[in-house]
Structures are given as C-alpha cells and as structure tokens.
C-alpha cells in the first residue's frame, strides 16, 4: 500500500508538471526561432544537402548523431554481453 501511494504521488506530480507546462508553453508553431531560421536559410549552402534534417543530423549536430550511434552500439554490445554466458552453456 505504501509503495502504491509512493508511485501514485510520483505520477500525480509528473502529470501536474506536464499539464502545467503545457498551459504556459509558447503556442504551438510559434517558437522564437533564432537558431532554426539560421539553419533553414543556410543549410543548403553550408552543408550542401537538400534535406535540411540530414544537414542538421550530420553537420550542425553531427556530434549528437555520433553519440546516438554510440548509444545504440553500447546497447547492442551490452545485450550481446549479457546474453553471452547462458548462450554458450546451451550450445555445449
């Protein structure tokens, strides 16, 4: 029961925060686009790529993509590592 109330309070807090944030956020589609405008205007020239999303992913924020690729790499290596021992036992 105590655990249940703990989880309930956490959920209520999160819902409160999310709903609260929704009401005071700027209206959808009207961000103060200081960074985005620059990218949209210059991506084709600087990154030589028609797909601006690709330009952001591999040029402007390429390091983040490297990081996300590494996250996948770590997850795969970790999964293979954790599944290793019992797998070997089964084979023999």
């Amino acid at each position: 029961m105590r655990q249940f109330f703990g989880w309930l309070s956490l959920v209520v807090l999160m819902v409160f925060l999310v709903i609260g944030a929704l009401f005071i956020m700027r209206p959808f589609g009207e961000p103060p686009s200081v960074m985005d405008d620059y990218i949209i205007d210059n991506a084709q020239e600087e990154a030589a790529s028609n797909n601006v999303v690709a330009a952001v992913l591999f040029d402007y924020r390429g390091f983040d993509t490297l990081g996300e690729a590494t996250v996948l790499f770590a997850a795969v290596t970790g999964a293979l590592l954790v599944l290793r021992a019992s797998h070997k036992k089964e084979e023999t």
Partner: protein
Amino acid sequence: MSTLIAHSSILIIAVTLATAFLTPLVGIASKRARNTLIVLALAFVAFLVVALARDVMLNQIHVYTLGAAAPDLTIPGGAIVPVRIILEVDGLSAFMGIVIAIVSLVAVIYSMSALKTETGQNGFYTLLLLMAAGMFGMVFTGDLFNLFVFLEITSISGAALIAFRTKFADSQEGGFKYIVVSAVASLMILFAIGLLYSQYNLLNIGALAATMEYTMLDRIALVILMSAFVMKLGGVPLHMWLSDTYSVAPASIPALLIVASQASLYALLRTSFTLYGVTLDQSVAGWIIIIVGLLSMFVGVTMAILQTDITRLIAYNCVCESGFMLVGLGVGLAVLADPGALDAFGTMAMNGAVFHMINHALFEGLLFLVAGAIFYRIGTRDLNQMCGLGHTMKLTSVLFLLGALASAGIPPFNGFASKILIYESVYQFNPILTMIGILVSILTLAVFMKVFFSAFTGASLPRYRDVREVPRPMVAAMIVLAAGIIFFGLFPGLVLDWIVQPATDALVNQGAYIDAIMGAVP
C-alpha cells in the same frame, strides 16, 4: 603542441570512442594487442587531459566549435546565437576530466588482471571505454542536449557492465535496476530540455544562461532537471538503487560508477550555478540541496551500520560521503548572491566540496577495489564469513585501513583535508550542520573499524590458510589510488591552489562561461 592542445578537448572524447569501436575488431585477432591498445589509448588520453587542464587553469576557458570553420568561431556570421555543438572546458570540467582519467586508467589496469579468466572480455573493455568516453563527454560539453546524449551512453554501458557477471542472478537484477533508474532520469532530463528548447529555441548552456528569464516554465524545468540529476547521483530520497547496483558489479566497475555519479553531480552544478545562476532563488535552491545532503549523510551512515555485505556497506558509505559534497555546495549556492558571505565562507565551502569530489573518487575507489580483491581470493562478500584475512593478505588489509581512515576523515589522509574545509566554513553558515557532519564522520569510523577488525584481524581460519595476496597489476592499481590519498592528504595546499580553486572560481563566475560563447557578439 599548441595545435594538439587546441584540439585536445575533442581528441579526449574521440580517441576514447574510436578505441572503443576498435576494441572488438582487435580483440578477435589478439588479446594482448587489444590490452596494449586500450592502455596506450587511455594513457594518451590522460596525458591530453593533463595538458588541457594545465592550459585551462593557466590561461582561459577552452572553447571548441564542432564542424565550424575554426574552433573558436562559436557564433557563425549572420547568426546571433550559437548554432553548432560547442565543447566548453572551464576549471570545473578540467577538474572532473582529471578524476575520470585517473579512475578509468586504474580500473582498466585492475580489470586486466582481475577478469583474466572471464568470458566476454571484448565487450567488457568496449563498454568500459564507452563509459569513460561518455563521462568525458558529459563534463566537457557545453550543450544541453549533448549532455543528455553522453549521459545515456554512460548509463547504458554502466548497466551492461553491472550485469557483466551473468552467472549471478543478482548482478542481472542490479543491471536492470540501474537501467530503469537511468531511463526514468533520462526521460525527465529530455523533457526538461524540450521545455527549455521550446521556450528559447536554444540548446547551448552559455547562450541559454544569457537569455534565461526564470519564468514559471523555467522553474518546472529546473525542478525536473535537479530531481533527475539527484536521482542519478544517488541523493537520499532517490538512493534505493545505489547499493543494489554497486554491490553486484565486478570490482573495478563501482569505482567508475562513483565517477559517473559525480559526473551527474557536475551536471547538477552546471544546471544550478551556470545555467540558472544569478536568476535562481539561491537560498531556497541551496537549502534544498543542503537538506538532500543532510539526509544522504544520515541515511547513508545508518544503513551502512546494518550491512553484513562488504560492498553494500561501502555503497552506503558512498551515499553518506556524497552528502558532504552536497552540503558544501548547497552552502555555496545559498550565499551565491551575497559577496561578503561568499568571501567569508562560501568559496571555502565549495572548495571543500569540490576537493572532496576527487578525494571521494580516490578513497571509495580504493575501498571497492580492496573489496573486489577479497572477493577475487575468497569468493564471498559476506562479512560474517571473513576472519583473519590480514595474516595472508597483508598489503590488502593495510590498503583497506588507509581507505577507511581517509573516508572517516582522520588527519594525515585526504578525507581530512577536504572535510575540515567543509566543517570550518559550514560552521559559519549554520553550526548545526557542522555538528551533524562530525557525528556522521565518527559513525563512519566506527563502521569501518567494525569491518576491519572482523575481517582482517583475529584468528586465521583454516579454510583461508592458503589464500594469497592478489596478483601484481591489481596491487599496483590499488597502490596508485593509495598514493593519491596520501599525497593529497600531505599536500592539500598544492592541490587546492592548482586544481580545486580554479574549479570553484569557474562555478562562481557565471559571466565568464557565458562570455566564452557569446563574447563574439558586440
């Protein structure tokens, strides 16, 4: 040389990552080549970290814009805010870099001998390097989303490393717990970053700090960020995962996990001091951190008394010690807006706390390595089954005593040097905090003395008669940490002047951090 230093901040991360990607390929061909490669790469990285730290502490904040036409071109022509990812290394980042470099090198050397007989070593070293790279990325980056990405790398590789010993069911459970906690914390952080991005359309920490308005939305983001980072570092209301995960990991991994939780502490500091900084209600946020710290101290030490498993006991001691850091930093944050108080005791409290971070990594790392050495020889972590180990494992017992005394804050060791700074300065802020701190220290000493006398002294048991000292590389790794403990204890002034003071200055001086990014704008 100057080109090397100019590129060093990215080289540190990228060389570690590239070595991690190379490890499985080389490991298939030859084990020895793989081990040499890893040690050489980490030694090179450690050298770069020292060179970078020296440059940062002597000259100025180091900025590196990824993918721009020049490393220091933070804001491209035609834009008014940074567009690309920027690495920004100031005193605190360089300080954390030193801690990470030392501990990861020691952990690798220790593992090479401790895990010699295990299967799946390729994956183990790959993940270890990825974890080191993730922590380097976390402390060097100046970009909020990049911080999140590297936090993810650290958490996922950490979880897999905790679950490395698959023959024990509890280590898989520990890994699962860690990944659940990390996933919750990561999602919260991502949500907060989304809020800030929707508000300002910026991701760079310096640029965000320059435009921060501290509206209601920013407060919500602050609350979410702070609670997520406290969760990741194991502060008390959210500490339940810590002992279950640290105690089941292979011996060298808890040492790295401590540094990972300190990287989360670093992120907490960046958020509260640099990102929000002067806009924050300092005393409220400071007192929240102080209360979390006090709770951590209390709960950590009382839970440590009850444990009969040596690694769980050390893990609870970790909770307790991180309480000291949080109290010191909380006091610093609470008086941030008041220059008089800051000069009188605030800077000193933060000095103590930052100094305690490196000391904590050294002595808790040593304690975990010693516990791992005992497990390596006798195959149990249960204190009730240990007796008289000091007769055959003399060096190990001496090293344990050294770590325990340092952790309890006994004079010639490094724990004393940092704790006395915290006591002295916190006393001027609120005497009760100091009294609680001293009480907790005494309890810590009692806990460790109980462990020492029950495990290492006494009659030597017949079944442990032919237990020998652990292999040399493991001893060497432990001695490196022990040497650090003694050195930092004997010459605290040197360490304070060289690496701790610049780190604290970097925390207090929010303007310099912003100027390093936004300085190009007239």
